[in-house]
């Protein structure tokens, strides 16, 4: 081998190594993006799953609570006084101390007292113990996300308030525990009371509508196209049309929903029914495509066997071909429903962006869904909502990964080699 040839060979192998490194780097980049994304969201969100609750002994002062007008009484102030008393302080003339105290404890405690008094008016004048969440900022302080080291002007709580919080913790009045409220409450303007149950229910209802419309319709359409349709220009157009529909931006489906469902047919704005219908149209092409390829994979011998014993074409398809294709159909369906579950943009178009402090009452009433809840909370200015946004994303991702895993298991389990 000449020197020139040897040098050339060396260069070629160096190029080969470089190329391999590019490829490996690309994969590492892609995977580290995934790790970064998941890691960041996990870090931002995990703290939501615990929360700090405080127990306070509250004197139900008849002078401050009007037994005749319980609703009109200021229970937040009563709770604030109880906290001040615990700290050995009293309110000043301007109410500064009390309002500082109110900044620490959730209004939920006030509501609890109201409800207990309603149920048992005799409690007036007695001292009761109520347990409830800390306000979001106080909670963040306990979780170390709001730090004393930050200049006082730059944080939401002043040194005075932080001293109180330290004392509460030291006295054992504050306990950290699993954040039940996050899973049992709907949205709220107070971050510590905001939960995802409303959004989860909304998502479930919407997905149910989507599935009920898109799955039968998509499967039947695919059956016709694959098994019955003649091969002509019309069916060619349908086929091209379905492939293109699958690639239409989701926001366009939102515009369709707004123009046709809401403005033309008068469907309710922001309701699971309307959202479900829009997402059904969006999921339809992918379900059709998945079902068609599952039907294609069923060998012709099955059809011939059924036709051979005198079954009609319809019987052949519905008794033999479709059941054989079912695992593939299910896999495609679950994947496209998982996709629909995470869809946001079209829902914004049909007005699903309202603040919904309750569990949706029905399919035609205004509701939130998980991804939209994420969007709404992300827009909120309070830091505690960012934590909750990440937590809501974790819940959303858990649902999506569960659905994807189900699809993968289904595919592995029933995968058939003919």
């Amino acid at each position, binding site marked *: *081998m000449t020197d020139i*040839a040897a040098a*050339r*060979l060396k260069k*070629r*192998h160096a190029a080969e190594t470089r190329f391999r490194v590019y490829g490996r780097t690309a994969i590492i980049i892609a995977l580290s993006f995934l790790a970064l994304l998941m890691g960041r969201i996990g870090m931002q969100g995990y703290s939501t799953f615990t929360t700090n609750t405080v127990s306070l002994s509250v004197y139900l002062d008849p002078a401050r609570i009007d037994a005749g007008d319980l609703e009109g009484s200021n229970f937040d102030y009563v709770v604030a006084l109880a906290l001040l008393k615990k700290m050995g302080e009293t309110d000043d003339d301007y109410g500064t101390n009390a309002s500082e105290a109110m900044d620490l404890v959730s209004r939920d405690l006030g509501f609890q007292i109201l409800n207990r008094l309603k149920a048992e008016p005799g409690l007036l004048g007695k001292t009761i113990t109520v347990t409830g969440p800390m306000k979001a900022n106080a909670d963040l302080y306990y979780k170390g996300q709001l730090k004393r080291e930050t200049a006082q002007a730059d944080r939401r709580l002043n040194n005075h308030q932080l001293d109180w919080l330290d004392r509460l913790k030291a006295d054992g009045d504050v306990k950290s525990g699993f954040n039940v409220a996050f899973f049992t409450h709907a949205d709220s303007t107070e971050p510590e009371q905001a939960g995802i149950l409303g959004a989860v229910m909304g998502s479930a209802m919407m997905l149910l509508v989507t599935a009920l419309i898109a799955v039968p319709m998509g499967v039947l359409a695919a059956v016709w196209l694959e098994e019955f349709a003649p091969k002509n220009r019309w069916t060619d157009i349908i086929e091209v049309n379905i492939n293109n529909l699958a690639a239409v931006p989701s926001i366009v489906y939102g515009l369709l929903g707004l123009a046709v469902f809401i403005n033309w047919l008068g469907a309710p704005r922001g309701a699971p029914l309307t959202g479900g219908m829009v997402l059904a149209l969006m999921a339809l092409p992918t379900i059709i495509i998945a079902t068609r390829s599952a039907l294609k994979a069923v060998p012709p011998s099955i059809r011939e066997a059924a036709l051979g014993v005198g079954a009609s074409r319809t019987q052949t398809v519905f008794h033999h071909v479709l059941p054989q294709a079912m695992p593939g159909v299910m896999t495609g369906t679950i994947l496209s429903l998982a996709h629909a579950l995470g869809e946001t943009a079209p829902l914004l178009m049909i007005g699903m962006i309202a603040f919904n402090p309750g569990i949706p009452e029905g399919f035609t009433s205004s509701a939130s869904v998980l991804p939209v809840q994420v969007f709404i909370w992300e827009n909120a200015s309070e830091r505690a909502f960012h934590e909750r946004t990440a937590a809501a994303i974790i819940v959303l991702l858990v649902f999506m990964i569960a659905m994807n895993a189900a699809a993968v298991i289904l595919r592995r389990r029933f995968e058939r080699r003919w």
Partner: protein
Amino acid sequence: MVMTMTLKPPVIRTAAPHSHHPATPQPTKISVRDINVFYGEKQALNSISVEIPGKAVTAFIGPSGCGKSTFLRCINRMNDTIAGCRVEGQIVMDGQDINDRSIDPVVLRAKVGMVFQKPNPFPKSIFENVAYGPRIHGIASNKQDLEGIVEASLKKAGLWAEVSDRLNQPGTSLSGGQQQRLVIARAIAVNPEVILMDEPCSALDPIATARVEELIDELRQQFCIVIVTHSMAQAARVSQRTVFFHMGELIESGSTEEIFTNPREPRTQDYITGRIG
């Protein structure tokens, strides 16, 4: 139409009219010692040892699945590209074991060309197909050089007359037989010493097959050629030596005349008379 059928024992001529056997036996080019090949757990070749002469055509015959193609792919280490394939043993070419770590398969494959069962021209022009090897190996120093190599290779492959006026057309536009001669031209463009052919005529019609066989016979003057075939007639027509494989084992090797007229092994006898296969 009346058909008269006469039952005659199969006659296998060992020398085609155009074939000239070398008067002197050729020196050994490749000497194979104790090769075993595994696909995962499954053993595909069992302790193969054989000598392959230079400047002659050696045919590997045997029923399908007997391992002859696998063995062929050992000679230019194409088995390296198959995941889970493991080769053990020595293949010595020009005094060097090609399975040695110091041997670069890239260099080896430039020395040992290969032609496949189905013609596989690249989706490029005829010219670019032939120029591919010289380009990647940096054989031509300038454009004239490259054009010279392409022309010479196409001439050697007997294709020049048919394609000289349309070198810029895609290689895939040629007929099957022309495509196969094109990939032969592609293989000889890098001036190899050995050319491996894996059933090169199985996808061709009889006329194209005859052209390729003629070509093989001409190339024998310059190259060591190893051809895998399951047409015994083809082996008899083109080769000087024949190796018979069965179930992953080498049963018998020898001069083509010997194998076809006077096999030592009963299994070889059975195969060439059509009792197994």
